[in-house]
């Protein structure tokens, strides 16, 4: 799972109001290089919750993202590169996602988070 997906994902348990962002417990992280597309990044920039991305990247061992941002930074190739790397090239391969409100753990195996809820959570 890439941090792009992590940034969109929130805990869906019935009654949970603050299910975002899920806390990452990383056991194995992979890096898979992909082509950088500046247009995609510019579009995504407005949708991404920046602080969640910074924290998630740190939990995967990458701390090169600036803590605060503004759209003007999208002109900088250096910034785009870091944004791209954090969003699309880092993968959480093994570990867990933890609901910030309930502490419920969603295991991640082979890069796939298991988001299935128990019957009493629906």
């Amino acid at each position: 799972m890439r941090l792009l997906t992590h940034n969109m994902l929130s805990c869906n348990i019935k009654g949970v109001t603050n299910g975002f962002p899920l806390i990452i417990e990383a056991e194995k992280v992979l890096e898979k290089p992909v082509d950088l597309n500046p247009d995609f990044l510019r579009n995504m920039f407005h949708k991404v919750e920046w602080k969640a991305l910074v924290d998630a990247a740190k939990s995967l061992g990458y701390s090169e993202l600036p803590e605060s941002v503004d759209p003007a930074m999208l002109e900088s190739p250096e910034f785009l590169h870091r944004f791209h790397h954090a969003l699309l090239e880092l993968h959480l391969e093994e570990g867990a996602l933890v609901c910030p409100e309930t502490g419920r753990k969603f295991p991640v195996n082979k890069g796939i988070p298991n988001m299935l809820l128990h019957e009493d959570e629906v």
Partner: protein
Amino acid sequence: MASRPELQAPPEIFYDDTEARKYTSSSRIIDIQARLSERALELLALPDDGIPRLLLDIGCGSGLSGETLSENGHVWVGLDISQSMLNIALEREAEGDLLLGDMGQGLGLRPGVIDGAISISAVQWLCNADKSSHEPRLRLKAFFGSLYRCLARGARAVFQVYPESIAQRELILSSAMRAGFAGGVVVDYPHSSKSRKEYLVLTCGPPSISTAVPKGKGDDGESSSDESSGDDENRTVSISDRHRPRKKQKLNKRGKGREWVLKKKEQMRRKGNVVPPDSKFTARKRKARF
């Protein structure tokens, strides 16, 4: 034709390792999934500006439909309830991220972030009650409600579906409308029993020009170019049930009784089927006739 897979077992059981394997080994399945996904993507009517969009593939399975999205330059996230199908997607090195999840429990995604969603032959599964706790109406509501929230305003969702009956199509469509979607059904090749395909085209947000439902292919009697291969098509979702022996009918002298019949009728109603109302004659005893 083999009976519909939705009637055989819950999806996470039906799509086991053996069933999932067919998705890598059958060129026919690969071809059909690709064509259905191409059409679904076309109906999404994304802006033609070459910018990759963030899309959702619901019931992404082995990632065949996702491959079409990748080939068209888009970034996608797939959701499926079957681990076996997702394993195949891993094997095929699907480019999208995969989530193990049940669409009937609702999608746990932030509001307004998704640019479009497709789903190939999956949504009709929601009309089944596979567990006693399953209530199709509630599961459809959870699904469409959460989908509506996570889509960007004006974004579309296109689902290729195989509804079992008119009532089932109505149930799916009305759940979508109640969640706030505008749109309707596009039927390709309506005059061909073989190539006929249904797509639910839904738009997020108030009705406008962009929410008008596009025309189906072959509406004016134009025939599908691949009529001959058509017979096989439906089998994407209705694959042989040879391995799954049907439950033997229990023969029991007293019959099933009124209570059992009432329960069954209620179940069928919940699936969206048209069932005659209960009356004092329901499950009455009949004279033995020879």
